[in-house]
């Protein structure tokens, strides 16, 4: 009789994984391609980063193809080239993103200092030395503008999604189409719409609430479409179970479907916020860019991070440009934190608390 204890000791292995030899070969091709690209750039009139990259890519693919062709034939060679090609496309796609992050850090970190978060600009000009003044007013402004935009757009967006997925009325298709079209509305158009519809005929002056309205117009499609996708993931069985227990449709949606989709709906909300946090054009039109802390959404011009950045760049001195980069860095950190929060919440399984 054999028992489990007597079984030969097995170690988990991955026989399909790349061997050191394979990895060495890949590294070899990589180094060879680099060498070729240096040689070509040195020997020919081709110049610049683009030339290095293009020659490196071309050489890598050619060497990869030839080696695999010689060793394993045409299908394997085509497969290897395809894989190399896709990897390079991915590299091309993420290069600008990395480049932006690195540039913002390099240029912006000089401007970081503690008073950024404790002072505003009411007694300073953008051209003053960097440690004077700060962007507290802009952080407060952005926070209030986005908060109000959220209060307006989240209920509308989620209810639209509920209409599209739960009620499925006659207008589902046109509304779905409109929501998609709305997500392509340029932010300046949203700003001009509020300018023409509210600022010119009614208030006749700048205030924060008008900015929030324009941001809400931009947020609604994001919130609605993301919520729609989340609600579609909730199994139809749950809806049927709610209704089969004698609930009305409204109670079944409110008690079963929405709670099951809760974490996804929070993700939709955060994505909407991240979408508008950096919007500049409508805010310049509608809220202006006060340098003073303003807590009143309905009166007077209001500062915001994008308008702070815009005005600092506009001032054009080395100090003001450093300020602008520091502002960009703060804004970027806020947006990245929001996206990370959205991903973390969204990665939880739908339906789990």
């Amino acid at each position, binding site marked *: 009789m054999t028992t489990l204890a007597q079984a030969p000791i097995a170690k988990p292995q991955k026989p399909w994984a790349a061997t050191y030899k394979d990895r060495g070969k890949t590294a070899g091709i990589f180094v060879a391609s680099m060498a070729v690209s240096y040689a070509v750039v040195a020997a020919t009139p081709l110049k610049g980063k683009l030339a290095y990259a293009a020659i490196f890519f071309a050489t890598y693919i050619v060497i990869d193809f030839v080696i695999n062709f010689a060793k394993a034939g045409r299908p394997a060679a085509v497969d290897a080239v395809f894989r190399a090609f896709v990897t390079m496309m991915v590299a091309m796609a993420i290069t600008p993103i990395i480049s932006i992050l690195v540039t913002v850090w390099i240029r912006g970190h000089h401007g970081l200092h503690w008073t950024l978060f404790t002072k505003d600009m009411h007694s300073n000009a953008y051209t003053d030395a960097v440690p004077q003044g700060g962007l507290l007013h802009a952080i407060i402004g952005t926070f209030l503008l986005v908060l109000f935009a959220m209060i307006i757009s989240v209920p509308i967006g989620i209810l639209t999604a509920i209409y599209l997925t739960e009620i*499925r009325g006659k207008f589902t298709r046109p509304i779905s189409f409109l929501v998609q079209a709305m997500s392509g509305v340029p932010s300046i158009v949203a700003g001009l719409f509020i300018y023409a519809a509210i600022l010119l005929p009614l208030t006749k002056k700048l205030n924060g609430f008008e900015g929030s309205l324009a941001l809400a117009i931009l947020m609604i499609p994001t919130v609605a479409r993301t919520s729609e996708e989340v609600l579609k993931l909730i*199994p139809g*069985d*749950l809806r*049927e*179970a*709610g*209704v*089969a*227990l*004698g*609930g*009305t449709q409204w*109670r*079944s949606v409110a*008690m*079963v479907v929405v*709670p*099951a989709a*809760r974490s996804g709906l929070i993700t939709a909300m955060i994505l909407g916020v991240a979408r508008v946090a950096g919007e500049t054009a409508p805010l310049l039109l509608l809220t202006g860019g006060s340098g003073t802390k303003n807590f009143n959404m309905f009166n007077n011009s209001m500062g915001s991070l994008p308008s702070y950045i815009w005005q600092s760049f506009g001032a054009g001195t080395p100090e003001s440009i450093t300020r602008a980069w520091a502002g960009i860095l703060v804004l970027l950190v806020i947006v990245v934190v929001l996206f990370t929060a959205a991903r973390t919440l969204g990665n939880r399984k*739908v*339906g*789990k*608390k």
Partner: protein
Amino acid sequence: MSIDPGSNSGNNQGDDMDTTAQTNSLAGIAASRVHVQPGTQALGVGLEARGVHAWFGEKHVLSNVSLDFWPGTVTALIGPSGCGKSTFIRTLNRMHEFIPTAAMAGEVLLNGEDIYAPGVDVTKIRLKVGMVFQKPNPFPSMTIAENVLAGLKLAQLKVENKDDLLEECLERAGLWAEVKDRLNTHGGALSGGQQQRLCIARALAVRPQVLLMDEPCSALDPGSTLRIEETISQLSSTVTIIIVTHNMQQAARVSDYTAFFLSDGGPGQMIEVGSTNEIFSRPKDKRTENYVTGRFG
């Protein structure tokens, strides 16, 4: 032998049917009228389907099914896939209309009243005719206890003592012993069979008169299936049960009556209905015989 409709007739096997059909008692009428012709007078008790048709868009999926479900009995609906069994039971608690393209014709009488009559409150119908689905579907955002009592909240019913109801329903669904120490944990952590019994407990909490079960064991292992079947047997004394199943042994084990559905490419029809013994031992229709003996092509 005559059957008192007030008592638990769930364990009466169909052997007695021929004799009961001769008597004049209400139960006798019921037994002889398991398959009724459209237009016959309503019994006024239990659930009666009269000439039910169903469509999805242009497609006619169910044709002229008339079937009575006497209180306290278990009726199994058998037949190959696509013969309209599930569609049929979904017409019995008006879940059919949940599908946008659905249409139906005919009457479904609950205690003698047409559930499709104008002005009928559909949520009240679904309270009286509960449903257990093919896949276990406990509400993921709720705990075990909240799941069982969800129907009360959904239908806004008031109950004196929720704890008693909770224990009673879980007990009747055969789940109390397994979950009584973790009522406030989430239902998703239970096994598939436990989840399905949780769904049965949830359906029982609103005290339905009829319980529709749409292949309740098709996603479960044999052990869980056995537990659900025991649950069905225990429930049958108090609740009318209609169960769709692909498992003929299951139909033979749990049901008093069996109805065989078949589609010959067109809409599904009910070919034959009778006591379960009769359907499995001496079916009248050749097609039924072929199906129950496994010779179905």
